[in-house]
């Protein structure tokens, strides 16, 4: 599926390599995880309460819609954490999932 975010400027930054769900992707130094993921695909995670996918909402650390996880289980807010070389990100919640309703 296509990327959600569109880069408009500042594209001369050094490349940072990380993994998302096992797949290697390239981002730019200074990218938030949100920008790194959404310049490659349409979503950040699945909603726990419906079949919908989510792509963040407020970008200022208030809505908590953009949680992703590292392979070691640390939860990161994608809007307020920058990419680092070698990061291994998982977009599926590692904890037990709240039972879907219905």
């Amino acid at each position, binding site marked *: *599926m296509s990327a*959600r*975010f*569109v*880069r*408009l*400027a*500042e*594209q*001369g*930054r*050094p490349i940072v390599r990380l993994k998302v769900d096992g797949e290697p992707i390239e981002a730019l*130094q*200074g*990218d*938030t995880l949100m*920008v790194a993921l*959404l*310049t490659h695909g*349409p*979503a950040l995670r699945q*909603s726990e*309460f*419906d*079949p*919908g*996918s*989510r*792509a*963040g*909402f*407020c*970008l*200022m*650390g*208030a*809505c*908590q*819609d953009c*949680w992703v996880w590292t392979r070691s*289980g*640390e*939860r990161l807010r994608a*809007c*307020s954490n*920058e990419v680092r070389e070698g990061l291994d990100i998982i977009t599926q919640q590692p904890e037990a999932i709240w039972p879907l*309703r219905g």
Partner: protein
Amino acid sequence: MATARVVIVGAGPAGVRCAQTLVAAGFRPILIDENRRDGGQIYRRQPQGFTRSYATLYGTEADKARDLHESFEHLRAQIDYRPDTLVWNLTPGQLCCVSQGEHSTVDYDALILCTGATDRLMPIKGWQLGGTYSLGGAQIALKAQAVSIGHRVVFMGSGPLLYLVASQYLKAGANVAAVLDTSPLGKRIKALPKLMARPRLLFTGMKLLAQLRQAKVPVHLGISPLQVLGEADSGVSGVQVQTARGETLTVACDAVALGYHLRPETQLADLAGCLLRFDEASSQWLLATDDAGRTSVSGIYAAGDGAKIRGADAAECAGRLAALALLQDLQQPVDAAQVAEQHRALKLMDEFRVGLAQAFPWPAEQAKALPDDAIVCRCEMISAGELRRTVSEKGACEVNRAKAFSRVGMGRCQGRYCAQAGAEVIAAAAGIHVQEVGRQRGQAPVKPLSMLTREVTP
């Protein structure tokens, strides 16, 4: 050197000017900020390594942004600055903080809350779809990351930020599909006398609209939002609204920036026991402070949009005033002329604030019209119909009770984006004024903490 332990929370325009005023009086305040860099949201700084100029980033506000950032740089060695630190709770005299997964406490004698604001949202059917962002979020994407939230973006809602962000996107080369404003022209004309309190700002606003029109961006006033169109997996594919003429308008897009001005972050003040009051002009609960920023709790002060939504310029004045009020309360000498100057400036900004609220009103009536299957709580997918049933079947006409039954406000955003609209839904269903349904109480932790959070003993 003064000995009172003064803590400021928030390093935006209010917090920085507050710190500056205290440093000038011989204090060394602790400045705690959740962000990695100073500037707050409005003067948010781009990451190291980005090269866009102040003029590109902040437009007409470039000089103010630079001045605030430079002031902060000068202050840095004279304050105890703690970035990347969330204050998640407080007790009398002590703050609970978390930084990089580690919990610690900070003692204070005086506390100045400069906690800022977030977008104020009214739900629309389909707003949970990926690709719907808050208006402020859309601005941050551009300002802090040089990206557009989509390939074709609709700006919908009301308020000055709607036109500002749309024109910033346009200028940066993004594809702006439409600007859809719920406020009709008539409201703006009626508000003109009050908006004339700040003619430069009024002129800037009118210029933004002219730029959008000149670029042939469709701008519709007085619209009623109907729905965000799209699919659960792929996200937004368009928006549908009713125009002022009553026609249905569909605009294709893959992103929507949605917002209706701002709401204050009052959780910490609320936990401290500070009183809030219902503000008629903006139809929301704000902190009750005196005109210098003293809250109802002795030793706790508030400034900036977290206390009263008046924008960045007012936040700078209010930050200085709150510091001056604290100095007065500590029996320190204070320059009366400086106090008077801030009050004078704030008076005009107050008038402008009321004008803005009239020109771009909070669309309370939309809550009543929201279809039963529209989602109110996007965190946990709770619909307007479910919330209405807590009123009709369980008699819950008070928001905290309705929250307990419906979970609206219990999700991961902790009510930041659904509580005000939820209160309107409840009020409309109960047939009472929104002030009577109350407001959701602040709860600790004010933002979710990770189960991996460790305690460190100093």
